[in-house]
């Protein structure tokens, strides 16, 4: 009985105290809402692959290469790592250079899109957790935004974080160099090793989701030796233009800005680097002391040198310099090429017409007629000069032209390009051919053709007067000159006294032979006039008028022009050519004046 009573009493006690006990337990387990939050536990950072610091072995084994790949990792006991920050300190020659911190967001993908570059943040802003939260909570629904982020990372442009509350100044991310960082936890570093021995200290700290930074960063230091420099070699300059193919490196023409005719004096170079295959080059002409003289760094092993690189810009010998920089930023020696003459790397002529201050027009008439007593149909030099003076005066060029009448031997010299380069246009006369072919006294041999071509390459213009054939051109086949310079082909010569003038087209006047200037037995016609076929942009300006209505020649193209396109500043206009296939001296003066005026207008000498 007593036992049963005790049991019942015990049950009552349990029944009474159990709720009280449960209540007490619940109250005890609750925290006060106003109690202070738990203190954030800071993250910890470790470097993964670094051997023991600063040992002799390391000095010898690692010191040769100022390049290292490091891996690191962070842990946060009460959260997760949202970013890493690191910095380098270089110690050499008694100096201690502390570099700025770089911060990397610990994000590799947004939604299902992998990031093309690691996200870098400028400095270590307090809002780092908010930035991390913003990017890590984007979903595929935000595809437009994700694409914009990816575009910014690829192009390494800052991307301001578009919070719902708006953009906050300074909260932006940028793509990291993909060579340096392939993930947020690795870096391929190249560092400055200018001295015989250099010490480098690397520190990395992880940052947790509360913005807490590891107070004890993972640190490694090691030594490097002086980095070996690349060795550079330079090849001889090459002329790289279409019409002066084959010119030597001592007779080049150079203008300030590239055109399709003048691509620049081409110089090739190469470099041998003991350590890396990655190198960039920088070149300069004449002056290596002025930093502005050096080109931008480029991987190209070819330089196209224009006159604007010359210091100063003048004709004569110039010296070309080049240097290389390897992957570690170590500069090579400054290499140069020296011509066998020992005077420089190359010799170039800069024509006066390329000077922005050149005042035109200036026209040079090359007249190679000897000053012998002339006859009808066989004029002397003075008759030719008088005729063309009158023509040029009538075209409004009084005082703006010179006539050179003492043989074309001066065209043999490369310096002739300097003479030609003082004139914006050249008129070459080949008049004394009628009625019979005489000695080839005004032959354009290979050298003279070359110098005329250089002048054209630099942007000079040419008006050619008179029938042209193999007695005018020698050395290089005439058809090559005709094709490359006149832009004509399929020449056919009329050996009969048959040409009585030309019918002008494309704005040119009709031109007739002047009966007072040819002998009566010539039937008031001239012979040896050639018809041709224009090529490319060449246009016919005159058709053959046959005295006998010879169907093989009558109406065929005899005069041609080739006009340059409008230039794109600052490049100068390329050459234009007007080739009158008939001897203008023997034609009616009024029509010759009109034709010459039109030709000068076409080549932009007069308005």
């Amino acid at each position, binding site marked *: 009985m007593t036992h049963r009573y005790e049991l019942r009493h015990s049950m009552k006690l349990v029944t009474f105290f159990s709720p009280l006990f449960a209540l007490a337990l619940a109250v005890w387990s609750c925290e006060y809402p106003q109690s202070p939050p738990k203190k954030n536990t800071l993250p910890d950072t470790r470097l993964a692959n670094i051997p023991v610091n600063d040992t002799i072995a390391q000095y010898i084994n690692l010191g040769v290469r100022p390049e290292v790949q490091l891996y690191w990792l962070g842990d946060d006991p009460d959260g997760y790592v949202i970013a890493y920050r690191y910095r380098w300190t270089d110690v050499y020659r008694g100096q201690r250079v502390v570099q700025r911190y770089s911060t990397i967001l610990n994000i590799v993908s947004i939604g299902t899109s992998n990031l093309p570059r690691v996200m870098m943040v400028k400095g270590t802003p307090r809002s780092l957790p908010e930035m991390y939260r913003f990017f890590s909570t984007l979903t595929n629904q935000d595809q437009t935004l994700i694409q914009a982020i990816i575009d910014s990372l690829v192009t390494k442009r800052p991307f301001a974080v578009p919070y719902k509350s708006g953009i906050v100044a300074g909260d932006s991310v940028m793509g990291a160099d993909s060579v340096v960082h392939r993930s947020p936890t690795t870096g391929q570093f190249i560092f400055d090793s200018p001295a015989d021995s250099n010490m480098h200290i690397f520190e990395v700290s992880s940052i947790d989701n509360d913005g807490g930074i590891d107070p004890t960063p993972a640190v490694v230091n090691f030594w490097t030796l002086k980095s070996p420099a690349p060795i550079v070699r330079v090849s001889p300059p090459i002329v790289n233009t*279409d019409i002066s193919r084959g010119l030597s490196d001592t007779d080049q023409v150079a203008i300030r800005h590239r*055109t*399709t*005719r003048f691509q620049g004096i081409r110089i090739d170079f190469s470099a041998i680097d003991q350590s890396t295959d990655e190198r960039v080059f920088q070149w300069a002409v004449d002056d290596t002391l002025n930093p502005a003289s050096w080109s931008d760094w480029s991987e190209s092993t070819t330089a196209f040198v224009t006159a604007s690189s010359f210091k100063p810009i003048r004709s004569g010998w110039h010296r070309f310099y080049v240097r290389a920089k390897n992957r570690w930023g170590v500069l090579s020696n400054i290499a140069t090429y020296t011509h066998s003459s020992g005077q420089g790397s190359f010799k170039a002529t800069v024509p006066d017409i390329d000077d922005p201050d050149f005042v035109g027009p200036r026209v040079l008439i090359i007249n190679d007629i000897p000053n012998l007593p002339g006859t009808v149909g066989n004029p002397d030099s003075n008759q030719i000069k008088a005729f063309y003076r009158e023509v040029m005066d009538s075209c409004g060029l009084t005082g703006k032209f010179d006539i050179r009448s003492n043989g074309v031997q001066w065209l043999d010299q490369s310096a002739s390009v300097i003479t030609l380069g003082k004139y914006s246009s050249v008129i070459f006369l080949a008049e004394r051919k009628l009625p019979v072919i005489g000695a080839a006294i005004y032959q354009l041999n290979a050298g003279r053709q070359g110098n005329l071509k250089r002048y054209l390459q630099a942007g000079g213009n040419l008006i050619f007067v008179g029938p042209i054939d193999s007695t005018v051109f020698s050395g290089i086949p005439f058809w090559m000159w005709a094709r490359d310079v006149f832009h004509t082909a399929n020449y056919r010569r009329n050996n009969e006294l048959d040409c009585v003038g030309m019918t002008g*087209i*494309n704005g040119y006047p009709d031109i007739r032979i002047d009966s007072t200037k040819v002998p009566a037995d010539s039937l008031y016609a001239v012979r040896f006039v050639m018809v041709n*076929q*224009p*090529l*490319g*942009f*060449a*246009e*016919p300006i005159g058709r053959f008028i046959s005295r006998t209505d010879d169907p093989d020649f009558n*109406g*065929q*193209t005899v005069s041609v022009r080739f006009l*340059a*396109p409008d230039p794109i500043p600052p490049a100068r206009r*390329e050459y234009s050519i007007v080739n009158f296939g008939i001897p203008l001296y023997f034609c009616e003066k009024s029509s010759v004046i009109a034709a010459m005026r039109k030709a000068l207008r076409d080549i932009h000498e007069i308005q």
Partner: protein
Amino acid sequence: MVRMRDFFTAFLVKSFVVLVLAISFLSCSEYEYSSPLPGILEVRLRVKNDRTTIIPFSDSNRFNIIVKDFVAQRDDGAFLVLLSDLNAIRRKRDGDSLNCLSLAARDSQLVLGVAYAPPGMYTTLVSERSTPITHDPFLLRFDGLSYQVIDVRDNAIPSRFTMMTKSPPIEVKEGKTTLVVLTLDLDASMIRQSEWFDWVAPMVYVSSIQQF
């Protein structure tokens, strides 16, 4: 009695037929969307060429662009494939060559594409589905006696017709023809170099829209 039975049978048959017809009529209803008749969308090519000295318009001169595909797009995203004529079922395998220097090109007579089109607003005349335009590698120019050949080099990857200005919305109405003239600016599309032309891209703009 027999007559009564026949009458009754006929009555039943007629009633059944009427009932079936009534049910079938009652079950019919209008579509939930409109199904209008088509209009016609025709796009013609006009060529703007100010270099009439170097490359004048003439049926003797030739520079062909090759159109393999021309696809417009309606504002609701539907594509419309335009072919060389209304009855065509496809273009030529190598595309249609259009001579940009012909007199027809000057006078907006070249047909880029035409098709029966569902009515609506065509906001994109040259859609992303259109194939890039290619061209002959050279241009032929006749000077009255002989032809001159001028190279036309590609300065970039071939591209579709590139709008120089935003294309205005083009409306196709039921039973009506909408005629759009697309002008190819040859001066901007083809840049002269010293010895050749550089083909940049077929630069175009809508120069007129007519409806009749």
